[in-house]
């Protein structure tokens, strides 16, 4: 069994609490692309994760939710998906209205139909404000979702990897102007043409800057291995269209890579991803894009994993950028954090 652990820092990452267990009961908490996600409302932590279904099937799973009980622990976990053994890859985010929005990939309408995008809303005290509701379909079965907000939470942007009948897996943006009650038709971010019958397990990331520009990063192999890499695109018309993709870094070897991004208060875009180093070990790399949209910083390698490093996450607070990632070596694993001062 695996646990969801949570540690917190009140000094910008210099010191940390002891990791505490989030899941009250022993259960098979899923990791990697389908790992636990956290959101914060007024210093209170809310966590979602996935556990396998009744028959142990990780692909027919359930979404679990627990929140800080404000007594040093977590509430007992509860399952959010109303149709059991049909949901995974949850995310939880905090819209500006102070409530919580949970999204996941659902398969209650099962093969051969592609997966569906389901949402539900929770109040800050963890109560369900809505039932599960579907806002999209055609999703790839195994890639994390991305989300961003605007207009006080009235506008919601979601990105996901789609799959068509030919198993081509491009990314799309979905936009809601009614607080995620409904979404418009998906807009293709880039016609990468990656035709893959198996699991990419690598989803997109989105951020919105103060000017209203939408920034997206993702991994694709494209139409040939020579195209494989981490890509970036921007929408300057509120998600109606996207600029031609830009290569952030090419693959150094056949490997599915994982990318994420965050946008600073100065409209600078911070990207982090995994790629292989010269010793064929996966490491974490970072790069920034200046607010002019043209000037890229050099690529920096920030991990020195003995085994492999993967699935970076970013957090920006004032002028501090925190990057955390997972390192594995054989059967050992650990979470590593590095900090940097930015925007000066």
């Amino acid at each position: 069994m695996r646990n969801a652990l949570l540690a917190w820092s009140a000094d910008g990452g210099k010191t940390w609490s002891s990791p505490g267990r989030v899941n009250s009961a022993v259960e098979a908490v899923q990791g990697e692309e389908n790992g636990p996600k956290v959101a914060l409302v007024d210093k209170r932590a809310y966590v979602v994760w996935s556990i396998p279904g009744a028959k142990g099937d990780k692909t027919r799973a359930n979404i679990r939710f627990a929140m800080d009980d404000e007594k040093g622990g977590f509430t007992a976990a509860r399952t959010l998906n109303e149709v059991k053994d049909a949901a995974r890859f949850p995310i939880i985010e905090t819209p500006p209205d102070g409530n919580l929005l949970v999204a996941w990939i659902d398969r209650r309408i099962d093969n051969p139909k592609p997966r569906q995008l389901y949402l539900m809303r929770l109040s800050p005290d963890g109560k369900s404000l809505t039932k599960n509701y579907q806002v999209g379909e055609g999703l790839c079965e195994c890639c994390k979702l991305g989300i961003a907000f605007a207009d006080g939470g009235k506008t919601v942007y979601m990105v996901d990897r789609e799959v068509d009948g030919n198993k081509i897996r491009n990314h799309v943006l979905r936009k809601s102007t009614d607080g995620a009650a409904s979404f418009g038709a998906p807009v293709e971010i880039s016609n990468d043409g990656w035709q893959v019958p198996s699991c990419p397990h690598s989803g997109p990331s989105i951020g919105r800057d103060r000017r209203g520009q939408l920034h997206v990063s993702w991994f694709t192999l494209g139409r040939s291995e020579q195209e494989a890499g981490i890509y970036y695109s921007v929408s300057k018309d509120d998600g109606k269209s996207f600029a031609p993709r830009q290569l952030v870094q090419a693959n150094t070897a056949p490997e599915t890579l994982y990318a994420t991004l965050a946008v600073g208060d100065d409209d600078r875009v911070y990207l982090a991803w995994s790629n292989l180093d010269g010793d064929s070990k996966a490491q974490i790399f970072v790069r920034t894009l200046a607010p002019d949209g043209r000037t890229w910083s050099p690529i920096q390698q920030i991990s020195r994993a003995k085994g492999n490093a993967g699935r970076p996450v970013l957090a920006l607070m004032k002028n501090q950028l925190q990057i955390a990632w997972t390192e594995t070596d054989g059967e050992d694993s650990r979470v590593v954090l590095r900090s940097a001062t930015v925007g000066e």
Partner: protein
Amino acid sequence: MKKHKRSSRVLLVAGLCLLVLTPVIGWSQHGQHGSQSSAPGVGAPAIAFDLKSIDGKSVGLATFRGRPLMINFFASWCDPCREEMPLINELAAKSGKDGYGVLGIAVEDTRAAIMQYAQEAKLVFPIALDLNSTVKRAYRIFGPPATFFIDGQGTIRDVVIGPITPERAREGLKKAGVSL
């Protein structure tokens, strides 16, 4: 986007059993790196490897020397892997009678998860753990599933990237020298 303005706290959540925090240090500059290696395609010698099985025994290409071998790269979290696994298991059950070997190589997974899956799915073939992805990378696989058919001399005779059908499995085994 991982940007939370509502709190001064930074939190990390991970479905892992060990958490280590590194000291705050400045980032070092690093240049481009690495080079593409050639893929072990059809007609190429299969790349030798030595891994541990889920029960701790050494298992590698040499274990199957002298007879055709079907290698299936899979993961417990992979939808199409699960969908094709009854076929792989069925072929493994017949392999002794038909004179070939079947080896599963679990990638991007954990021993506990694979052991649980093998038990639930009643898998009857040996499973090696590629915990550091070295064999997956040597065989140039972006993601599971992928199946390689290797003849008794150690030459790759067929490759199926993605889910395999009974017809393609039969074709691959024949190309590897199995009389069906």
